[in-house]
């Protein structure tokens, strides 16, 4: 499997939790806090569930606190995916 990218995350964000009016997911969102993008902790939890199911990895509920921004989420998810592949 190729690396998990910000675009993969964007697609899952759109499909799973929707997008606030006035938020441009295609913009430079990598380092914008999820909160500022309109994604509360429950939304991040839902994102993690979607990613977990799609990529066959287990992301704990505590992981949400370790991914405050999309860039950190992508980094964390790639770590998880790499671990799962070993």
């Amino acid at each position, binding site marked *: 499997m190729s690396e998990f990218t910000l675009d993969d995350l964007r697609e899952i964000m759109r499909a*799973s*939790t*929707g*997008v*606030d*009016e006035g938020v441009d997911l295609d913009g430079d969102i990598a380092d914008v806090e999820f909160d500022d993008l*309109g994604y509360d902790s*429950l*939304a991040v*939890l*839902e994102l993690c*569930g979607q990613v*977990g*199911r799609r990529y066959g990895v*287990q992301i704990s509920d505590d992981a949400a606190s370790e991914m405050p921004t999309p860039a950190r989420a992508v980094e964390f998810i790639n770590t998880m995916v790499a671990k799962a592949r070993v």
Partner: protein
Amino acid sequence: MVSRPESECGDVVKSIPMPTGKGAVTSTSGTVTDPVVTGIGVLAPTGAGVEAHWHAVLAGKSGISRINRFDPTSYPVRFAGQVPGFAAKDHVPGRLIPQTDHWTHLGLAAAAAALADARIDPAELPEYEMAVVTSSSSGGTEFGQHEMERLYLNGPSWVGAYQSIAWFYAATTGQISIRHGMRGPCGVLCCEQAGGLDALGQARRLLRTGSRLVVSGGTDASLCPYGLVAQLTNGHLSTVEDPARAYLPFDAAASGYLPGEGGAILVLESAAGAAARGMGHGYGIIAGYAAGFDPPPGSDRPPALRRTIERALADADVGPADVDVVFADGAGVPEADLAEARALAEVFGPRGVPVTVPKTLTGRLYGGGAALDVATALLSLCDSVIPHTAGPTHLAAGCEIDLVTDQPRDARLNTALVVARGHGGFNAALVLRRPEADRAEGECG
């Protein structure tokens, strides 16, 4: 969650004691303590919007059709009232759609419509003085079914995070509160079909204890296999194949009722507050309310409905002769119809007051039903016309009521009574008065 104020009282009926006196009430005008309805939002099988609904009701145009939210072929009930042409994306912020059930989508849309109708911009009002109290009977059943399917088909990790908030009875109240920044007292009443009146009763209470505005009423939507199967357990849904003959309250051929989705959200304010905004009495005044609870099955004590009606009239300081029209519950279940007809005949005399059940056009909307009846009754008062009950043709033996059938009946209307009964013993009654007589007809709202 708000507990139902009277439900702990067994079959005792009482109106809620109010902190402010009502000594100055007369039968034709409200006092500053009587709330008024300044905004209505309707999403019902009869139409999306107040005007569409009211036109359909007066035309006797039914919103009942074959269920199309799922394939009902293998179910004993295949007809229901469904909101026509509703697309959540037209009414609900994109983020909220996958987080919430269809019933909440309907509630959010109706609330926004009601606030616009009341010319309220919540951003301009103190957030802690705006309250939200809705009625719900089924919760987020359709959403929950979808998540349960994922659970048993795929496993626990497939259940979405939003199930935790979407199914819950208070979800619609909470989402309305969040969307419009209303941080005053919020709650939900779960009293099946009586809940719409109980929510308005609670809203009235909040207006008397510091809230400036209450978004109230209710919606419900449980037209999915899980929801329908749950409803079937009471044995009261009609399996008659002809949608025009399936739900015939008070008729000799009554065979139960059909379900429906939707409801109405109302904006309530104190009469003084509404007047200060130039809204007059809006659509009308909520003049009286009472709730009661039936004795258990097999008891030799009488049902609570008669006393519930009498207490609501007393609370409004009106007598039976002052009531010009009754919007009945009309269960469509022979024994329930007979009990309601008897209660009405005992209070008003045999055929003593016009009675109507416009909900034959929508089916029973559970948590949304009585709120829609209140909206319809207010429109009836405003336009001086009693909408007819489409369907029934021959009153059942013992139902000594003046049921308005065939066509609407013009009448000078000052006071309306709305009656609602919920499965399990809930009874509620609400008295409405038309806006002050110095307002010309057609100026309501």
